């Protein structure tokens, strides 16, 4: 999991809790702004916008408290992101996979995704990559789609 990097005392700069607290405040303000579209009603007769507004205020106050009390947390720059590039690539690949799922079907999507992860990202040898990708794509489809009767998307070619 994440490690707390020891901080050098007395150093200036935004702290992690101050940053996250302020982000929460900004998010709360955004929610409150979006909430204008719904009638808030009154304290006695709350409308559909009442609870979201109450929650936006609550999150804003919590964010403010986190930011105010965050002076002793680690510096924002002390949070390391060594895995961030890989994480972004994984998320993007999954996004492309999600986009492709209903277009080219479950099996082709999963095979392509696994080839990308194992072959391109992890640089594994071609034979195990092919075996794992094709094997996983077909076996998982057979178990979930055929045995458990969960409808999974097929390609336009019926595959």
């Amino acid at each position, binding site marked *: 999991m994440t490690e707390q990097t020891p901080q050098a005392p007395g150093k200036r700069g935004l702290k992690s809790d101050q940053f996250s607290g302020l982000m929460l405040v900004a998010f709360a303000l955004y929610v409150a702004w979006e909430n204008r579209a719904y009638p808030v009603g009154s304290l006695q007769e709350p409308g559909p916008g009442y609870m979201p507004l109450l929650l936006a205020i609550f*999150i804003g106050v919590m964010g403010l408290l986190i930011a105010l*009390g965050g002076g002793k947390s680690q510096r924002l720059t002390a949070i390391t992101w060594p895995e961030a590039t890989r994480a972004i690539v994984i998320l993007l690949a999954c996004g492309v996979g999600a986009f492709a799922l209903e277009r080219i079907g479950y099996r082709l999507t999963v095979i392509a995704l696994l080839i990308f992860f194992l072959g391109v990202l*992890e640089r594994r040898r071609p034979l195990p990559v092919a075996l794992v990708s094709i094997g996983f794509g077909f076996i998982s489809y057979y178990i979930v789609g055929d045995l458990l009767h969960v409808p999974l998307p097929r390609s336009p070619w019926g595959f």
Partner: protein
Amino acid sequence: MVETFQNLLLGFSIALSPSILVYAFAGCIIGTLVGMMPGLGPLAGISLLLPATFGLNPIIAIVLLSGVYYGAMYGGSTTSILVRIPGEAASVMTCIDGYEMTKNGRAGPALAIAAIGSFIAGTVGVIGLMLLAPTLAEFALRFGPPEYTALLMMGLFILAYMSSGSTIKTLASAGLGLLLGMIGIDVMSGYTRFSFDVVELGDGVGIVPVAVGLFGISEILLTAGQAAAVKVQRPRLRDLIPSREEFRLSVGPIARGSLLGFMIGIIPGSAHIISSFVSYGMERRLAKDPERFGKGAIEGVAGPESANNAAASGAFVPMMALGIPTSPVTAVMIAAIMVHGISPGPLLISQQPELFWGFVASMYVGNVVLLILNLPMVGLFVNLLRIPYSYLYPCILAFCILGTYSVANSMLDVWMMLIMGGIGYILRKFHYDLAPIALGLVLAPMLELSLRQSLAMSAGDYGIFLERPIATTMFALGLLLFLLAIKPLIFKRGKDWRKDVGLEGEQG
């Protein structure tokens, strides 16, 4: 008592039928494997298996999913003891002394005590569930909207008090979850809120994409790029038997962990995680020679393992008796029951006795299955740990996409899962607890509806919460715990119980 016994017999007649037994076995095995895989805790495992239960009858569905739950709790301990990797968060404490025992050549007894402790705690938990849930359900029949509002508010306050990290951050997480639960059609006015013109969002955000994203995807994003497979010890069956002294030392921690875990399990939050931390802290404090802890003390395995398994059973009490989830796992299980047209709540036990008592009996069976299956097969299960993580995580990702999509055949759910994965990754970097988000999402519609119904009942008078003794008591209790939770924030010298048991607590 006679009635309970008769009901239990009814339960066993259901649980011992071959089809249920097969699914109980399957659930325990899948759960054990899921618990051993980093990135796939009980919640992600249950969420992924959820679509597969849609075609089953509700009893089989709940038996299968609960088997996965307590199987995963057990599986997590195996990896903690053998390779110092907690398969799921509740096993973190088991790593400390469990792995030290492995290094000292005592992996077998550590695994055996973890299994025996889990079995005893699981059984104690089921007895507690069996005795407490029907009584609580009967009591809850007196609840109206004000009582439910008070109960849910109390749950959120307790969540803040029992959080393993910062109270304020936990409350902020709960707020984010509650806000997420506001998305969709408001049942009282018909307004569609925060749907951003996406028609599918009118139905709200589902618990499965949120849970799989927050807990499964974010874990993979944090751990992807990890080194190759770790070296794993493969204990033989004859090495598993603990010595007489190890048995003697484990009796107290197992008994205390079972009771403590069950009680903590009933209250909201990451109970199974907290219970293992509290149990470890308690055992270290009670030990005559606490310096042994961290160097392979068997009490450090017996206590936390018993506690987290008892907590897993305890979490079913409010779920079955009140229809209120106290953890993301029970929230997903409620979704599993509701798919079959069954409304969880105080009437569930009286209207669906086969479901409740069959479930209770299947938990007894499941505990026995775990004990007799996992110890002899531990050598086989640990082979999973030899698979390099670079091969495991892409398959887990594919499972996450598959599981989330198949819940409602919705691409929006897959997108939601990925977004939640990204958000979970960032929040974990900033040390925010993710469980309150999932919990808030489920509780939000109930809380809003009961609050507005209460005000409709009283013509807008908030005094209704003070006129009804049950609601008033729950509000007062919740408020008291909330004040205790924020005490360390106000009085800097105030004692924070979480720091005593090794949790993060308030910073500063």
